[in-house]
């Protein structure tokens, strides 16, 4: 098969470009820890029972009780997504805190994207979406549903308040 010299050069250049990109992505993941959500261990959620008190951490009432302080400056929160709200939908933590989100849905698929962070996940019934971020700057950060979840989809959001 005939391949032109310039075309060969161009092809090698493309291969090199891809390798550079792959290395950059690798560094961002391994050195800076920018991670994708993966299935966390130890959960077995059934969307039909997940909201029942006592059955899962998303059933605890009132919803504010689903924010747990693990250690000074270290939190985790269990957010239940449903048409068309998150519970809890107002979360307050002190500046400098690290917080891990565990989000699941009791009805349809939702989304969860938190402003000014690398937190962006699908929220799928039967699965648990988990990501962590640290907040140094005080302020109000919106988390917004970014997957169509019915006719009230555009009203679905919550706020993280860093004091």
């Amino acid at each position: 098969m005939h391949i032109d010299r310039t075309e060969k050069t161009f092809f090698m250049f493309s291969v090199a470009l891809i390798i550079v990109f792959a290395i950059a992505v690798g560094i961002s993941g391994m050195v800076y820890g920018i991670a994708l959500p993966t299935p966390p261990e130890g959960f077995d959620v059934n969307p039909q029972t997940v909201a029942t008190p006592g059955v899962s951490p998303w059933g605890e009432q009132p919803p504010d009780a689903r924010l747990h302080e693990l250690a000074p400056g270290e939190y985790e929160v269990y957010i239940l997504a449903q048409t068309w709200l998150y519970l809890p939908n107002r979360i307050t933590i002190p500046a400098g805190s690290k917080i891990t989100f565990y989000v699941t849905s009791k009805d349809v698929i939702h989304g969860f994207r938190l402003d000014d962070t690398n937190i962006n996940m699908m929220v799928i019934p039967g699965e648990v979406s988990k990501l962590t971020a640290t907040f140094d700057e005080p302020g109000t950060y919106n988390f917004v549903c970014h997957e169509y979840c019915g006719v009230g989809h555009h009203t679905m959001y919550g706020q993280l308040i860093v004091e």
Partner: protein
Amino acid sequence: MFKRTNKLTGWYLGVAFASLFIGGFFGPFQSLEHAGVNLYPQLQAIGVQSYYQGLTLHGVLNALVFTTFFIVGFMTFSTVNSLKRDLANHTVSVVSLVVMIVGLLIAAVPILLNKATVMFTFYPPLLANEWFYVGLTLVVVGSWIGGLSMYLTVAAWRKENPGESIPFIALASTITMIMWQIASLGVAVEMLILLIPWAFGIASGTDPQLARTLFWFTGHPIVYFWLLPSYVSWYGMMPKQAGGKLFSENLARLVFWLFLLLSIPVGFHHQFVDPGVPAGWKTLHSVLTYSLFLPSMLTAFTVVASLELGGRARGGKGLLGWIRALPWDSPSYTAQNLAMILFLFGGIGGLTNASYNVNLAIHNTSWIPGHFHLTVGSAATLTYFGVSYWLVPKLSGNKLFKPKWALAQAWTWFAGMILFSNGLHVVGLNFGSPRRTMLGVSPYFNDAWSPLLIEAAIGATILGISGLIFYTVIVGTVFSKQKLDAPIEMPVAEAYHDESHVPAWLDSFKPWIIATAVLILVAYGPMLFYFFSNAATRWTSPGFMVW
């Protein structure tokens, strides 16, 4: 020549463009809503119940119906005209067309009645009326039958021409259909095993994560199904229209085989932020997606080199002077060249989306519709428009109506798309505004979005006008009284180098299909096995109609 095939092609194209007309109608309204001009209360007068019903029509009709009908029609036409042999069995193609139309009508009823406002991705547990799923499945099955008709024709041609290699355009068209048939197995399984029994109440629950996985098994390669017909034209036809030759024909064959091999086992790159897919599988699909970048780069090189041959043959001189010498007075050529330029940006954006954790920055933000209006909305759609500027005159026997308007159509699409797409890309990347959302009335609307959403809305309005010009030209051509002076033939580019000898491995289907199947098994087998073997505990989601 090939009168009956031409007629069939005309039908496919007719349904395609009628669907796009209705689907495309909503585009400008969506963008205007984002910019604060909410016309949906007015649209209720014509029966549109919500933004989301309109968006479902926009996605289903544009991305699923328009594309599939156009592609099956165009690929049938290109195969026959490339082989210079009529369809082996017209009846098969007629059955394909009828099944597709029946499916479309069955699916259309629930959407129009607002009983299937589930977007073109129909992710469960959103539960549409059962006939929506049945109808869409029939459209897919009909497209398979259309593919079968092409294979029968290629096989018959082989028998009649022993020892000859399949001409490039016929080969590329056939590979496109094979790729689609393998790829659409994902959505077929989703429909037949998960959704249809569930929607008819036979199964009580479903597995939303599995459904997404099966959907994207088809959902990534479907973008190549939209794109490859454009590539058939860019490689096989445009060089001829530009007065040039196909720079390296055998490499072009290889590129199509690579698209068959690599288009499918990459679907998890649409599920990077799905909670139920382990990181290892996401990494594997990310790497495979990167390798898919290579045939795309070869395409960029070969197509530009082929056009350069044309520009120089037409007297263009100097480093860039050949560009000006290209046939910019031809609407068909211009539309496709502009589509290519838009696709350059679409390709760069696509690589961003596919870059593993970089996806976190843009997933499901306005960036995404900004991206795919460059790909399916331009590289595919604007190329199909360009093809139509010779194909519709050919099929109707009439001269192109108002060629100057057609030229203006191409340029307005280009200009409108730049504004529209840029606005959406930037607002999504910088501010994370969500897609598929009635942004204008959202409680979290951020005033900083406004200038960008207004830019997009201006672009969308220009695009709407461009679309209207397109329909004027096409309808005008079909009903024109001015007959063609001489019949139009499909443009077929010659090879530049002497490539009359096609290596056997570039001319046989079997090894490539087997390799494709193996790669799919490796990339998808274990996860699908995991999902299906845990069905007892996983199929727990009841359906919801929440619109």
